[in-house]
């Protein structure tokens, strides 16, 4: 199958941090009772990852699982396998009341990398991004300028998901505040 058209066509901006669209990723919204043992088993079986705790983000191999709400997870996998993973989850969950849907195309995935990635994000999101307050292994859903977004940390900075239709807006907003000469230097 042909390469999927990503929301930003691989857009890239090098300011005093780098803003770039990430490679396409499979994304699955999985809803169910996170307190249910059977549910956790299935997640483990399919992703190889234990159920994340509140606002945790766990990654291993091709998979990552993020805690979105008390009854929702975001499962990340390779883009091409998303439908298969949905089918797998649905089958294994069986009668357990749950919902698994492929949302890979409904989202944009953007990377913010560089030493000052934290403060660039902190110009648009009302979140304490100082190292003491936010770090690897966590996910935060919040507001980015005027739209909802969720982000977590990588070795080089952040990955951020937002809705596909506002990908341009988010990319432009991040690029605007990442322009050279805009460094604050207060979140080290």
């Amino acid at each position, binding site marked *: 199958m042909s390469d999927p058209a990503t929301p930003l066509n691989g857009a890239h901006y090098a300011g005093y941090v780098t803003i770039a669209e990430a490679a396409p990723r499979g994304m699955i919204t999985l809803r169910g009772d996170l307190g249910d043992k059977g549910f956790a088993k299935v997640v483990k079986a399919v992703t190889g990852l234990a159920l994340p705790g*509140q*606002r945790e983000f766990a990654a291993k191999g091709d998979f990552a699982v993020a805690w*979105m*709400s*008390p009854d*929702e997870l975001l499962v990340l996998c390779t883009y091409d396998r998303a439908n298969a993973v949905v089918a797998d989850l649905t089958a294994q969950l069986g009668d357990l009341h749950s919902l698994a849907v492929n949302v890979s195309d409904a989202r944009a995935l953007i990377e913010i990398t560089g030493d000052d990635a934290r403060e660039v994000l902190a110009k648009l999101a*009302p*979140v304490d991004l100082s190292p003491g307050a936010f770090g690897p292994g966590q996910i*935060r*859903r*919040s*507001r980015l300028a005027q739209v*909802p977004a969720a982000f977590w940390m990588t070795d080089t900075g952040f990955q951020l998901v937002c809705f596909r239709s506002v990908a341009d807006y988010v990319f432009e907003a991040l690029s605007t505040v990442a322009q050279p000469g805009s460094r604050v230097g207060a979140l080290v």
Partner: protein
Amino acid sequence: MLILRCPYCGVSGEETEFHAGGEAHLKRFGPGSSDAEFEAYLFQRENPKGVHFERWRHVNGCGKWFHAARCTATLEVFGTYPAQSTEPPADLRKAISAKRPGWKWREFS
């Protein structure tokens, strides 16, 4: 610019992460109710200058609805709790009584 703590995801976020949903613990009246009951359900509000129980949604967050007990005269937030409750938790009511002796709000006080 309020700070509220979402009881579901544990985030203490600023107001712009949330959406205010008006008075909490309204009993819905449907078909079969009297005009007075139905009007009261839709429109009559406590709107007190003081302790107020209200609904909020963590719209730029986990998306969950929750309840907050807040003073409309000082904006002090006494506490938040899940929306799946028909009345404020006892411990919260006790805490409010300690701070606002003699507070009244519908049948809970």
